[in-house]
Every structure is written in C-alpha cells, then in structure tokens.
C-alpha cells in the first residue's frame, strides 16, 4: 500500500517537474522570447508586434507571477489560446486527442499480440527456423524508421497494388469496420518498433528464466511442461518485458506524430506541426504537455503492473 502511494506520488512530482521544464524552456533561450518567436530569417521584428505578443503571453509580468499563472491555468486544464487564430488550445486537444489515442491503442495492442507470442515461440526452440526468421525480421523492422515504413506501405499497398486506401479517418463509433481498415496500415507502421523490441526481450527473458534454478525445482516436482511454462516461466519473464514496454512507449508516442502526417490521420500531429512551423508557442506547449502527461500516466500504469507481477518490488 505504502509502495502504491509512493509510486503515485512520484508520478505526480514528475508531472509537476515536466510542466515546470516546459514552462522554463521559453525562458532558458537567451534573448527576448517574444522577439525570438517573431523573428524570421535574421530580420528584426516590428517592435509593436513584439510588445503585443509580450503582453499576450504575459511576458511583461515578473517570472514567478507568470509561473503561478501557468500552473493555476494548468490545474484548470486551461492551456491558453493559439497565437494564430486565438482558438483555445484545450478545445483543439480535446477534439483530436481521442483520435491519437485510438491510433496508439491499436499500435500497442498489435505489438503485444505479435511481439510476445513470437518471442516465446522463438525461445522454445532457439536457433530453429522460426527463431532465425523472426530474429532477422525484428532486426530489419528495428532499422526501418516509422515514417519510411509508413511511406513504403502506402507506396506498395495503396498506390501499386491498390489494396488499401492511402490514408484518412472515420470515427470508430460510426463505422467500425471502416475504422479498422483505415487504422490497419498506420497501426502496423507504429507497432513495428515496439513489436520488434518486445519480441527480442521476450525471447531473451524466456530463455533466461528457463535456465533458472526454480524451473529445475518445478521439473523436480514432476509438473507438466505446459504448467511450468505458464505458471513459472511466463510470469517471471514478463517482468523485464514490461520494463522494456514502458521504456519504448516514448518512441511510440513520438512515432504517432510522423505517422499521422504520413497517413493524414487527423490527430494531434496536424495542429502540432502547424504550430511548430508558425511558432505558435501556446499550442506547442499545450500538446507537448498533453502527450508527456500521457507518457507519464502509461509509465505509472506499467509501474503498478510491475509491482503486481513482482512482489519484491513492493517491499523494496
């Protein structure tokens, strides 16, 4: 119980620190932030515009005041307004976050369903035909950047073979089969890295557990091989797999930015990229905080799962 509270508290502190860092980045850059945001290609910006922006971002206030206002707004889930069209950032995020989440969920589920069973299978007969095939595939998948895989999928499946639509989105609540068709290619692209990593870790981890003394004890009890695999090997093997899963989530979340662009998926990526290009600072900050918060939340969940799997974690 104490362990649980400690984990949750740690996550809360981390979230707070992340928000603070995001707040500070604007001020860590040498020079006047407003001027920097408005400058393009070396020419000095119009002083009136700079003054305007400064007021709009509250940069004319003392730093501690800005910080408190930032935190207070964040607590109310108010992420400010876009510099470009004055639209509330939170509203934009609320509209698009669910679509990004759908894509992430599809990717994670796919990689777990493929990566872990393949890893177990490969470990049961190391050096066998399946192991070699799967290991090679994993090595190649790890090397292809997400956006390359996405683009190639479109090139081959959509443009050359015309099997799939090149991109787009429908709401799963309205047309679930249509959603599945549209989500399949981006999900594959996004899942590839995690699936490969999970495969490798599962293989290593299962092989490792199989050679441990307690597996020998289980055999000495006369247990059937299947029971040994399920009751003794799998649960122990899952612990390092989980660690890798949570470590790799950051890459996967980052990958969605690229993949949404490649497949025209109307998630958070579009406004984010538009905002980076037009230096719409509040919009970028809002989205970065949202996704980082999501990342922290996922890590907290895996942490809790970790503690459930391995009792030693709970007491340490």
């Amino acid at each position, binding site marked *: 119980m104490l362990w649980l509270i400690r984990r949750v508290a740690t996550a809360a502190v981390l979230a707070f*620190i992340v928000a603070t860092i995001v707040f500070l980045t604007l001020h860590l850059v040498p020079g006047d932030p407003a001027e920097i945001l408005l400058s393009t290609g070396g020419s000095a910006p119009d002083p009136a515009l700079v003054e305007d922006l400064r007021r709009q971002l509250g940069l004319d206030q003392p730093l501690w005041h800005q910080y408190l206002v930032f935190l207070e707004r964040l607590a109310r889930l108010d992420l400010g307004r876009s510099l470009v069209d004055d639209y509330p950032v939170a509203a934009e995020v609320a509209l698009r976050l669910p679509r990004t989440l759908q894509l992430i969920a599809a990717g994670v589920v796919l990689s777990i369903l493929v990566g872990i069973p393949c890893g177990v299978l490969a470990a049961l007969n190391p050096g066998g035909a399946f192991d070699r095939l799967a290991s090679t595939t994993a090595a190649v998948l790890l090397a292809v950047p997400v956006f390359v895989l996405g683009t190639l999928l479109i090139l081959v499946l959509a443009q050359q073979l015309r099997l799939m639509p090149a991109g787009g989105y429908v709401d799963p609540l309205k047309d679930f089969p249509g959603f599945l068709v549209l989500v399949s290619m981006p999900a594959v692209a996004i899942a590839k890295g995690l699936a490969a990593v999970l495969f490798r870790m599962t293989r290593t981890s299962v092989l490792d557990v199989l050679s441990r003394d307690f597996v020998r004890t*289980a055999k000495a*009890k006369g247990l059937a091989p299947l029971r040994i695999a399920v009751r003794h090997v799998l649960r122990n093997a899952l612990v390092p797999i989980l660690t890798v899963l949570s470590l790799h989530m950051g890459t996967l*979340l*980052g990958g969605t930015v*690229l993949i949404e662009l490649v497949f025209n998926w109307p998630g958070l990526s579009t406004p*984010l990229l538009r905002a980076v290009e037009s230096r719409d600072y509040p919009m970028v900050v809002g989205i970065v905080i949202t996704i980082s918060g999501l990342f922290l939340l996922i890590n907290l969940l895996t942490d809790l799962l970790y503690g459930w799997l391995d009792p030693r974690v709970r007491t340490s």
Partner: protein
Amino acid sequence: MSRRTALILPALFVLTLVGIALAAPLLDLANPVRQDMANRLAGALAGSPLGRDEFGRDVLSRLIWGARTSLFVAFTAAAIACVLGTTLGLIGGWFKGIGAFVAIRSAEIILCFPPILLALLVVTLLGPGAGTLILVISILYLPGFVRVAYAQVLATRAMDYVEAARALGLPTYQILLKTILPTIAGPVLVQLSLAVAAAIVLESGLSFLGLGVVPPSPSWGLMIRGARSTMEQAPMLLLWPCLALTLTILAINLLCDALRDWVDPRSSAGPKLRLIDRVVPGLLPPSIPDATLEVRDLTVEITTPAGLIRPVDGVSLHLAPGETLALVGESGSGKSLTATAVMGLLPPEARPFAVTVAFVGRDLFGMAERERRALRGDRIAMIFQDPMSSLNPVMRVGEQVVEAIRAHRPVSAKAARAEALALFRRVGIADPEARLDAFAHELSGGMRQRAMIAIALANRPQLIIADEPTTALDVTVQAQIVELLAELQRETGAALVFITHNLGLVAEIADRVAVMYAGQVVEQGPVAEVFTSPRHPYTAALIAAVPEPGRDPVGIPGVVPQPHAWPSGCRFAPRCRFAAEACGVPVGLVETGSRAVRCVRADTLGALAPPAPRAAEREAVAGASNVGAPLVVARSLTKTFHRAGFFRQGPGVQAVAGVDLTVHRGEALGVVGESGSGKSTIGRLLLGLIPPTSGTVQFEGRDLTTLAPTAWRAERRHMQIVFQDPFGSLDPRRRVGAQIEDGLRLHGLCPPAERAAKVRGLLERVGLDPAYASRFPHEFSGGQRQRIGIARALAVEPRFLVADEPVSALDVSIQAQIVELLSDLRRDLGLALLFISHDLPVVRQLCDRVVVLYLGRVMEVGPAATVLDQPRHPYTQALASATPRVQVADRRQRILLPGDPPSPASPPSGCVFRTRCAFATDLCATTAPPLEPAADGRLIACHHWQALTP
C-alpha cells in the same frame, strides 16, 4: 556467422559510409543543390547514375551529401552526450552523496518526454537547423550515458578488486581510470552506437517533417519528404533514400548487438549445442531386487568446444530403503551431475548412459518421459543447494507446495493447503499460516530451505536426493536442517542421497559413503569403516585435510583436473603420494565385502594413516610468544549503515555496536560468528576502508579516522586485505603480475628495474610458478587466485593483514593449503593477522586469540584454545557444538539454537542473544551484560556465565 564476422561486417559498412561522407567534397559529384527543371524526374543520365529529383537535382550526389549531414549531426550529438553523460555518471557513481543523486535524477527527467516532442518544443523556440538538432539530440541521449556509466560504476565499485585497489592506496582518479573505465568502456560503446542510430532516426524524422535540416541542404529525411509527392511517377526516388537510411541504421544496430555480445559474452545465446537425446534403455534386469535405487555404470557425456567430455564416468551406487548414502568429493568431481542424471533433470546438452538406473526395480532410463515425470516429485524428490534461487520469486511459497501436492494427487485446493500447512509445521517453520502466503525473499535462508524440504516431502517420497542442502547456510542453521532431515527420514523411512563436500556432515548423517574423484567413485563403504580406516589415498587425504582437534590439517597438493585433461591411468595419480609405476593404467573398482576401492596399490598399502602434519607448524602456532605490542587498537567501534537514497529511512542497520578490539604485532586474531554478525564490517573498519559511525581506530598510535587523504593512502602499505571470493577479488582485465606490481609502484618500494623480479619472488613465496605473472586471472583455479590475492597484499610488506573468509569458498583440500600458507607467512614475516571465518576448527588451528561476534557485539574473547575448546558463553557453546566433526568420538552434545539471528536493524533489548538463549532470565531482557574477565584470560559478556560454568 561467427562472432568476429558479426562485429566486422557492420563495422566495415559503417566505416565505408563515414569514409564516403567525409570524402564527399573530393569526389567528382554534381552540385547537390543545383536545380535543373529541364531534367525533372529524369532517369539515369550521364553523370547521374541514379537520375534526377523533382527539381532536377542529382540524386546520387544528394544521397552522399545527405549522408554527410545525417552522420555529422548524429555523431557530433552522440559524442557530446557520451562525453558529458559518462563523466557525470562516473562522478555520480563514485562520489555518491546527495549532490550526485540529484544530478543523476535530474538527468533522468529528460526521459519523461517522448523524444520527438521535446525536439519539437526546442525547434519552435530556436527554429530548425543542424545546430538545433545537435543540441536537442545531445540533450536527449545524455541520460542514457549517465545511467549506463552510473550503474556500471556502482556495480564495479562493489567488486573486491576495486576495494583491493583502494586498500593499496591507489588515488581515486587512478582507480577510475584503471579499473572502472575499462569495465564501463564496453557498455558505453554499446550505448554510443545506440545513440548514433537513434540520432539518425530522429534527425531524418524531423527533416521529414520539414523541421530538421533546412532545405535546400540535402538530407535523407528531406529527400523522402520531397519524393512523397511524386511517388506515383517516380517510386525509385523514394526508395533510394529509404534504402540508404534503413541500411545505415541496420548496420549500426547490428554493430551494436555484436558489441554487446563482445562486451558481455553471457548475453548472447551463443552457439547452442543441439543434441539428440540418445538414451540407451537398460540392457540388464536390476540385480538388487529390493534396492530403492540402483545405479550401474552411469556415464554422462557432454560435447563441448574442447571436445567430448565424460564428467561422470561409470558410476555405480545402490541404496536400500531407509538408508542414507553420502556422496562426497571436491567440486568438479561429478556429484551433482550424477544426482541430476538420476532425477532426469540434466541440461539438454548432456547425454546419460547406464547399464542400469533402477528405482525400486523400475528402469528409470527406459521408461517414457510421462512415467518418469509421474515419479519425479512424487516417489523421488530433490532438494537443491541454493534455496533462494530454487524457489520461484513471484509465487507464494505455500502455492509452490500446494502445486507439488496437486501435481500428483487429485486433492482439492483447500485440502492441499491444509496439507501444506501441516508440512510447514512439520519442518519447523514458525508461524506457518502466515508463511504460506509469504514470498521467498521474505524468508530467511534457513526458512527457505525448510520450505524446499516441505516441497520435497509433499508426497512422502521413497527417495530424497539432497544436493549440498546446507552449504549456503550458517553452521547453526545447518545443524537445524541436518537434524530435521534425519528426523524426517526416520519418520517416513525414505532413502536419502546426501551430496556434500563436508566430511563432518557425512559422519553425522550417513550410513554409507561414496567418495567421488574426477567423475568416478574411488571408494565406497560404511561411514564408520571408511573414516576410521580409509583404503584409497584420496579418501585418506580428504580426511587429513579437515581440521580436527589435536591434529593439524594437511592439504592435498594440486587441483582436480578438468574433464578433458584426465590422466589415462589412475586419475588421482598426479596428486597421490603413493603413486607408482603400476598406477599408469586405468584402475577398476574392486569390491571386497561392504567396501569397494579403486586403487591398484590398495592391497599393498593396507589401512592408511593420515599424512603427518609438517613439524614447523606446531611450533608456529604454539609460539604465541612472538606476539608484541598493540598494533591496531579499536575503541567503542560502531558502524551503522543507512539505506542509500534521498531520505534516510528507519534507524539503519547496526552492523557493529561498541566493539573494543586490539591486535598485537605478529598476532593472529580470529573473528567468528554467523553471517551478518558484522565480521567483514569490522575488518574494513580496522583497515580504515570505511569510516566508523563512532569510536576510533588507531594503527601504531595514529588515528586512521582523522588522517588526511594523502597520509591515509601512505598508511595503506602497512595494512592489507585478502577477500573471500576468489573470482571477484582480481581485476579480470589485467595481468596478474601487473596487479601484484601496483602496490610496489605506488609506494615506491623498489626500483622499477627490480619490480619484475620482486613480483616473481612474491609468486614463488605464495607457492605459484613465477611465470604466471603474465597470465590473466581466468586462467587460475580458486585456490590459485587466493594465492595471487595474498601475493598482491604481501607486495607492500604490510604489518597487518585482514583475511576475510579467505578459505570459505574453497574445497577442504585447498583450504588446508591456504591455511598452511597463511601460517607460514605469519611465522616468517611476523605479520599480524585478523582472520575472519565462520569455521571454528580453522580458527582454532591458526589463531592465537579469538573474538566471538553476535549481532555486531562481542560475546566472548580470549585465547583461541581456551575459548573454542571450553566455550563459556552460551552462544559460543552453541556455535562450537554445531560444527560437524569427522571423528565420532569428538562429538559433543549438540546445542540447537532456535530460529535465525534477529535483524541487526532491530536488535533485542538487553542481551542481544537472549531471543535464542536457553538460559535467558528477566535480567537479560533489560540489561546488556558487560564484558567480564574470567580467570583464564578471557572476557565474557553474559550475566550468568559463572552459574553456567561446570
């Protein structure tokens, strides 16, 4: 693909790529940014073998210049992160402390951001460009390096050989450079290649988004971005940069994997030996009908890189119902393999053959695996050496017992749990209900072994095989477990195979004994007969190596040969003092009555007397007269360990509490006690390797705790340490000679030209071939490494040597050799020795005085002969009686201590021993007994010692 090619091929690819990228300006390439709209999307042209892109720019040239950009950004950023991160990690790991902790943790905050998002945030502020990319990427991969370096430093600084370097007085920066940097170089290199690959991915991703490298500069990401719009007309335009990017990352990833295997050979699956399980079914019917177990001519074959070996070679054993057979021999003699072969638990690369392996008349090797599984855990059970690793860490121990029951009998979960509870109660687990739901890590070592025994007993087996079940335990706990096993066996009538290298235990528990050497049984017979009149020279030598009262042990020269280097004749011949010409031919096992011996000269030799102890030794030990003035004086020494971390939690562990101790010149002081009693901590405190929480240590009158660092290091040459673990105490990466030389060089003890000769002299002094100086530690056996460790300590000609369980990890035969060496050194060099051990007979033999520790406090101290032969303190008495004796006549009334020592984090009030003391009274619970002098020169900390003295 061999490990070498796996490393070289990708490395060559990456090097070539880097070379081409570097040489780009020198190559005769078209201008990568010159547009030529006339040749838009053109195929191969003269001078443009890969065609032109959507602006008519040359594709090949853009690919090569793009590589230049990508690699420049990736390598620069990764190098910056590597240098900064590694330095930070090194410093943090070495100096620990709050500051380092905060620095390390704050670097890790970066890991809370998905990488690409942090990059986008910075790009928003700084605008795109190569500079921004390098900044972002180096920040992103900094924590990776910090982590790797930090973790490696922490792991390495805990190694004995780093402690040894500190004990020699090596300054911190030299330790970091010499011992730690080489160990972390591998992992850091792996991290570097990881970071480069990740940096290329990130750079190309950002460029693909149009937020990385600024057009028109060529970059692979930008090329893919550009080619997307025209991919229908010109798919090749898309494929070239995709291919280049993927191949590059693949090559770096492969390089990284190969590096990792190279750095840590264990992580690779390696070439797995895939063998057919050829099992020859029993050819003959079992000839001893009522035997519980009959093994005839069991051989185990393993194919290794060094050739086919037979670590078990023609072993025959038999066991009647209710009988206990002990299997003894040095490590490497094939005891465990024999047992696992009988159980059918051999690793897949080992193949067993036998004429007969029969369990109550049923042929074990001939039956189907299903049948065999039905016997395993039901009729035949096994107990293993290390109960911690043998229990599943994530499953409650009760469940593991229940599982064993239900695997063989159709009982309900509830009934099985009730049985498990009864079993736990039977094996003496206190508070069994609660313990059923505990996990292995929540139990003490003795408790875990009891749980293992409960699992083995779950189905009332007819045969129990126990493989060194007490080796990992303290003598006091060992005594409890052995007693329990004997009792249970009497109760259930099971036959027991008890594997051990402890002859004393054999004498206590077994009916018959089989002595194994180099894969063969060399002598077999009833314990009493074999131990009183051994007929094989090896058996006699083993017995002579055990320290017993009134007789000094004699080691067996040499070591057990490796299985691929067994002599063709008698395998013991190279170490046998009776070896003769007749011994050059293979020797068979000859049975006479209840005995069997494998020695051609057995008849001529007759009953063997133990080899005579060397005469010199008696004098040395008896000559306590050369003991001089106080050398090391400790007063009210206390050491409390707190858990590492940001906040101090709880009261901390009191490893040593208020100990007064004096070591005189030339004296050997023994320190005994159960594990966790603070023995090692005292050793390190006396050497000044760790600071005491309170109290003082003086060496020749100088207070070690207040010395300045340089003076402290200069002091190192007077005091040295030898460690327990022969494998961790030498740096695996450096030649033995260089490690011995460190101290000479550091303290300027002899001119550089003479150092090599001095090192050779030292090796000779500890009984090794001087030529070994140029070898690496892995080429030596445990006993030889221990000698090297001693030579390293002796190099600086110390006056004080702490030996922390120097023989505990060694076989008895080797143990005796090392003890002989230490006592010679004492005699010849006038060395003062602090000898830490849990083996009372060895201490009795080697030491002048002895200190008995319990929970960090002195219970009894005085002359070794007095204290150990007539212990007065109840704890000393229990310790002494728990030590197994080979000679039946020496056995005392066994005092079994209940339970385990309490945790040093919360010691009992009053006398700390009272929770396990049979004589405790109310006074003991309230008042800590002072150390009182007795008439015979010892001090005792017990309120009632006088009443207890007979």
